[in-house]
């Protein structure tokens, strides 16, 4: 039932959006649930679909956080595209490898935002980014495992 899968993805985006809206502003360091979801989806799909996943992650975060919607959407669309492309490389597609890819994608995203947004305290931004990279990578394990069951690859 394809519609059930997509409904699940929509529900996951809804939950991730709510968690990001609540936690990113309250905690000094928190994971980006939208990034983890988009990154995990991108790892399971072609670059076009990865771009769509990234686009929605960026747009929804920009919308709920009141941030610059265009910058977040453009950066994460590009990250989603790149993550899908990286996942297509001839490497083992285990959760650990996908966690590394999502962690690397988070690093690139944070660097891009550092350049485009120019936050007032760059050092603090770096420190928080480091925690976010680690937390995103850890969260990728269960999220990727769930999405892999929803969208089994052709090999499976």
């Amino acid at each position: 039932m394809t519609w059930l899968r997509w409904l699940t993805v929509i529900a996951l985006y809804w939950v991730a959006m709510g968690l990001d809206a609540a936690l990113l502003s309250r905690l000094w360091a928190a994971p980006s649930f939208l990034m983890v979801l988009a990154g995990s989806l991108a790892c399971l799909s072609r670059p076009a679909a990865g771009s769509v996943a990234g686009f929605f992650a960026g747009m929804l975060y920009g919308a709920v956080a009141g941030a610059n919607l265009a910058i977040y959407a453009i950066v994460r669309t590009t990250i989603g595209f790149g993550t899908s492309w990286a996942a297509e490389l001839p490497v083992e597609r285990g959760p650990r490898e996908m966690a590394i890819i999502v962690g690397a994608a988070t690093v690139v995203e944070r660097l891009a935002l550092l350049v485009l947004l120019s936050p007032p305290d760059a050092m603090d931004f770096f420190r928080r980014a480091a925690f976010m990279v680690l937390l995103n990578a850890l969260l990728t394990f269960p999220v990727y495992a769930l999405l892999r069951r929803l969208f089994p690859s052709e090999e499976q």
Partner: protein
Amino acid sequence: MSETGRRDWIAWLALIILAWLLGQAQNNARRAGDTDRISSTARSIAQPISGTATSVADGMGGFFASLGRGPALIKEIDKLRAEKAALEGSDDRIAELEADIQRLEGALELADSLEDALPVRIIGHFTDEARITLNAGSKDGVKPGQAVTVEEGLLAVVQSVDEESSQALLITSPLVGLGARIMDEEPVEGVVRGSDPDTLIMDYTENLEVSSDARVVTSGFSEHIPAGLEIGRILSRRKVDEYGFRQVRILPSARLGRHRVAVIVR
């Protein structure tokens, strides 16, 4: 580039353009002091989850904070409880002191109102003997038989005098007898004597029924005790037919209680 590869790039480009357009819409809305539709819709949709997550985050934050600060908070609570108990005790003490001040002020006013009055301190009390010690004696002009009064009325009668101190018997002592007058429609005179620590008795021979709760004052038929000093109020009445006199029980107006200052009427 393969067909799928080209489609991927086209999809990416289309999404970048869409993102730019949405950004422009957002900027236009902000310039107008408004929120763009996408942002407001996204916030409304996210609210159920974000509200719940916020409550959970606050609760967990409080839980972990209490784990860390728990012992310190318990100490602080114990300390605050002790301070509160001390303050409550001091409230009682303040009330006592205020009552003492009122009694002192009453004694001073009484001294001012009487012709030759000497304020004295009550420095001793012997309950079994209904006796008090005063800090004034013969050098201050104190003589046996003089009245010791407080704001409420007659308290005691000076019994013995030293040079610097004196002893007085409370009017409730059976050893004290006072000339008294019942202030009624028809005043009745008699002798009041102590009965027990709480009441006085007065016998009189006139065949007159006095009002209950009538005032009883000193009659002035005494060498040292002036007339009109408040003794008390009638508590009960009875007629002793056997001996042909009437008897009233009197509740004294003045009680030693917490009085520490009195006035001797010289």
